[in-house]
């Protein structure tokens, strides 16, 4: 993994097997399917539910600083803890949790390469019991919104081509043929994509076993679509978790300086009154 810009942001399943229960390490499972953890999980891992613990449940937003601090404290995490996050769907919501941990300045956060899928496929030990957690006091840093794109920045990027917009949804969501991933509820009024966006589905960054492709392969994948880090990049999807995955790839594996995750994503843009929408394949 030495060829990545920040190889320290990834750990292997072997590493977790050897160090997952070290006193300064906290392993956390974050799944799209929040029932998965209860079925079986990495021994010693705790779970965070993306839809109740990694967002504000009243207004649509990420955790506030106070909510993040409470989550970390209740999870037995201190600012010095090595936080190792993994999950289903090749780490979709694990990347979402990683992104929020970085927004609030947690220093040592890592993704387990390959996520839950690789751990299970390798036939490693799993557990069903919940680990004992001793609460801590946790003081986060103020939010670093240089990692997050809000609507005005996206509108400016689309209108002025001041940033590369990367749509990481499936090609059919991008064209407007479907309004949500197949089998999931439609959550927007209009289909299509933000004008000027390039279609680079998140999954193209992964191998079949769920691990990330090599830096050379990733550089070629994004470079082919003109996304080379020369100008700011804004990644988006439907609700912001798949784009967290791509944000991680661009920022930590390829080392692009200015990458933001537009977590409003298509559920914001596709519901906006009078917002410009492009249909069909990218020009």
């Amino acid at each position, binding site marked *: 993994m030495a060829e990545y810009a920040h190889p320290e942001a990834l750990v292997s399943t072997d590493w977790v097997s050897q160090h997952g229960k070290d006193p300064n390490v906290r392993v956390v499972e974050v799944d*799209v*399917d929040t*029932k*998965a953890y209860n*079925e*079986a999980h990495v021994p010693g891992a705790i779970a965070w539910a993306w839809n109740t613990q990694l967002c504000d449940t009243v207004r649509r937003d990420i955790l506030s600083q106070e909510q993040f601090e409470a989550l970390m404290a209740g999870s037995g995490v201190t600012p010095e803890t090595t936080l190792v996050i993994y999950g*289903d*769907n*090749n780490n*979709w919501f694990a990347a979402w949790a990683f992104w929020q941990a970085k927004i609030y300045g947690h220093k040592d956060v890592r993704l387990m390469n390959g996520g839950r*899928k690789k751990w*299970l*496929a390798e*036939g*490693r*030990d*799993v*557990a*069903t019991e919940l680990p004992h957690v001793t609460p801590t006091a946790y003081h986060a840093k103020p939010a670093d919104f240089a990692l997050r794109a809000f609507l005005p920045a996206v509108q400016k990027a689309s209108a002025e081509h001041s940033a590369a917009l990367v749509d990481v*949804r*499936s*090609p*059919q*969501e991008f*064209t*407007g*043929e*479907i*309004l*949500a*991933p*197949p*089998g*999931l509820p*439609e959550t927007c009024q209009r*289909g299509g994509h933000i004008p000027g966006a390039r279609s680079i*589905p*998140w*999954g193209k960054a992964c191998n079949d076993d769920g691990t990330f492709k090599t830096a050379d392969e990733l550089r070629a994948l994004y470079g082919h679509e003109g996304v080379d880090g020369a100008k700011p990049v804004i990644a988006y999807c439907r609700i912001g978790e*798949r784009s967290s995955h791509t944000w991680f790839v661009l920022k930590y594996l390829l080392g692009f300086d200015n990458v933001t995750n537009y977590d409003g994503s298509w559920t914001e843009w596709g519901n906006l009154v009078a917002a410009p929408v492009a*249909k*069909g394949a990218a020009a």
Partner: protein
Amino acid sequence: MKIEEYHERTLDLDGWKVNLTSYRLETEWHAKADNVSPGATLCRTTGASREEAEQKALKRAEELLGRTRRHAV
């Protein structure tokens, strides 16, 4: 405790590609169906055999995929 007999295959269901994963956890079989693109879990089922767990997953996945509307582009 370990996951055993892990198996994945991709098939076509109602015009959509579906990834079907199944494995045994002690005496119970587990199956999971996800839509290949983008890869979101559609359902998770259990059964006394691989076949039973997979059939339940495929039935539920077919129900969900059948609700997906395709729009003219």
